[in-house]
């Protein structure tokens, strides 16, 4: 089996989930006796290709072009389609990043093929690769297999595999091969403009030892005060899942999850957070997770060390009181 791992960089900096997917790709290559090649795409990214060549890969394809300096779905799709048609891989793996979501389905469709996206795991059984992805916001998972001939495209969710388990290459660096693409400016319909950050981050939640995080279960902005009291008693920062920040009840910089911050505090207390995957990827590395939720089937309990099924409006004030008591006592 011929496997391509498509790495991701922006302005010469790795998207680190590339190495998580590299770990998965190496394992799949080993189990299927496959040949794994890496791909670096952009402009002026030869140094990244040399860096990738230190890992267990047969070879690196360096796909460079002036029109690939800034990401566009048209540019990246056309370039990678040419590489795929030349190399004829059976399986193409991507990290499931925002950028990959933006063009990998297009690449698949342009090849007349399918993509299994946002996988959290895979199995290799009876000579078949089975990809595992979540459905119904993580309340169920599905085993999914490709049908028909390749190339098949799959993407792995951030955190699904560990970047620190990636295998280094033995016996010198992998050869880096330049792949020349044929790309014209008029094929690219998107005009990418400037990148920017919205606001200076006033709080750095990644540095907080303890976080009290609120979700939809808090119901109304006036109820946030009870979570803030608990945070004060715990000497914690307040954080939230996306819906709370979307509503404007807390500023965006307090948001935990795939579109917000990724945190790993000593203590993460999730109040009324159901635990959609987009949230869980941002906090599952926390050392101790406590979840309080009225729904005993909420997926947040999948990652919790301590769970309380009940009404947070009764439990949180009691918890605050107990903490204050234990401080003075």
């Amino acid at each position, binding site marked *: 089996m011929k496997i391509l791992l498509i790495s991701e960089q922006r302005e010469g900096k790795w998207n680190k989930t590339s190495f998580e997917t590299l770990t998965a790709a190496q394992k799949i290559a080993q189990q299927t006796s496959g040949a794994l090649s890496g791909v670096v795409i952009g402009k002026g990214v030869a140094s990244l290709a040399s860096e990738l060549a230190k890992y267990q890969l047969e070879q690196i394809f360096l796909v460079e072009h002036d029109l690939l300096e800034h990401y566009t*779905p048209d540019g990246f799709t056309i370039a990678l389609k040419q590489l795929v048609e030349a190399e004829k891989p059976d399986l193409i793996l991507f990290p499931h*990043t*925002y950028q990959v*979501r*933006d063009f990998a*389905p*297009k690449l698949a*469709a342009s090849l007349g093929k*399918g*993509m299994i*996206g*946002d996988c959290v795991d895979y199995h290799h059984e009876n000579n078949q690769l089975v990809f595992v992805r*979540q*459905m*119904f916001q993580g309340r*169920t*998972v*599905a*085993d*999914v*297999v*490709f*049908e*028909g001939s390749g190339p098949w495209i799959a993407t792995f969710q951030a955190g699904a595999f560990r970047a620190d388990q990636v295998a280094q290459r033995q016996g010198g660096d992998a050869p880096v091969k330049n792949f020349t693409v044929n790309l014209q400016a008029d094929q690219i*319909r998107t*005009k990418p403009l*400037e*990148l*920017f*950050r*919205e606001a200076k*981050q006033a709080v750095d939640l990644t540095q907080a030892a*303890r976080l009290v995080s609120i979700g939809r279960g808090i119901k109304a902005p006036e109820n946030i005060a009870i979570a803030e009291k608990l945070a004060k008693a*715990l000497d914690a920062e307040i954080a939230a899942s*996306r819906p709370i*920040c*979307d509503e404007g009840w807390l500023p965006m910089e307090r948001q935990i999850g795939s*579109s*917000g*911050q990724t945190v790993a505090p*000593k*203590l993460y207390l999730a109040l009324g957070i159901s635990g959609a995957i987009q949230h869980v990827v941002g906090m599952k590395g926390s050392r*101790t997770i406590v*979840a309080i939720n009225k729904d005993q*089937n909420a*997926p947040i*309990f*999948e*990652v*919790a*060390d*301590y*769970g*309380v099924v009940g009404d947070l409006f*009764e*439990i949180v004030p*009691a*918890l605050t009181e*107990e*903490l204050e008591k234990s401080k003075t006592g």
Partner: protein
Amino acid sequence: MKIGVCVKQVPAKDAPLSIATPAHWIRESDIGFETNEPDAFALEEALRLKEKHGGEVVAISMGPERVKQTIKEALAKGADRGIHVVDDKFYELDPLGSARSIAAAIQNEKFDLLLTGLQSDDQGFGQTGVLLAEILGLPHATIIMQIELLDGQRMKLKRELEAGWFQWVELPVPAVLSIQSGINKPRYATLKGIMAAKKREITSVQRASLNVPPALTQKVQKIYVPSRTKKTEFITGSPKEIAAKLVEKLKHEARVL
């Protein structure tokens, strides 16, 4: 401006899910359904564009008879008409098959803009918008936080990237946009809107009549409830008892206080 917006109907957020036999989908019989929340943001954006620039908003949904309710809700909020792609077993389709079906049903509409939500809360493919663009030969952009029409021909769009970064991009019209959740505050239907919606037309198209290639690129072998990766210790009792036990555990067992 003629705007199509894809709205999906999904199981209600608090619906208790049980897995059907064979385990390819859930049991639909005893649960409620609602409009996929991310699609509500796309619909709202479509309605606002129409209010600002004039034109028409068409709500498109695929699925069994029940999804008409989701189209009706879109009409009650202000969409002008609906297209229902009828298929009782739409859940057996892969992302490409779904997108090809919707594309076939709407290709003669020649929308200036086609909007989708970010992803569905049931299957969660997150691919439909991008696939529709490729199939219809249109440019696209995803995770859109702001839409500015520069003239009739071009748009300036604010895209959300990861970790707090954003990017402006320019795109020609017609195009397909996937809207980020939180871009706006979706409106509620008014009584007047609900009454007006009754007169608005929903065109039904049988998916089977669209001649979409039946071959699948992927297939769900089975769906199941995930096994726990962590052992959760559940703490029970009155709120006061729970608080005391939890503080004790956080102090002496987890040692995080």
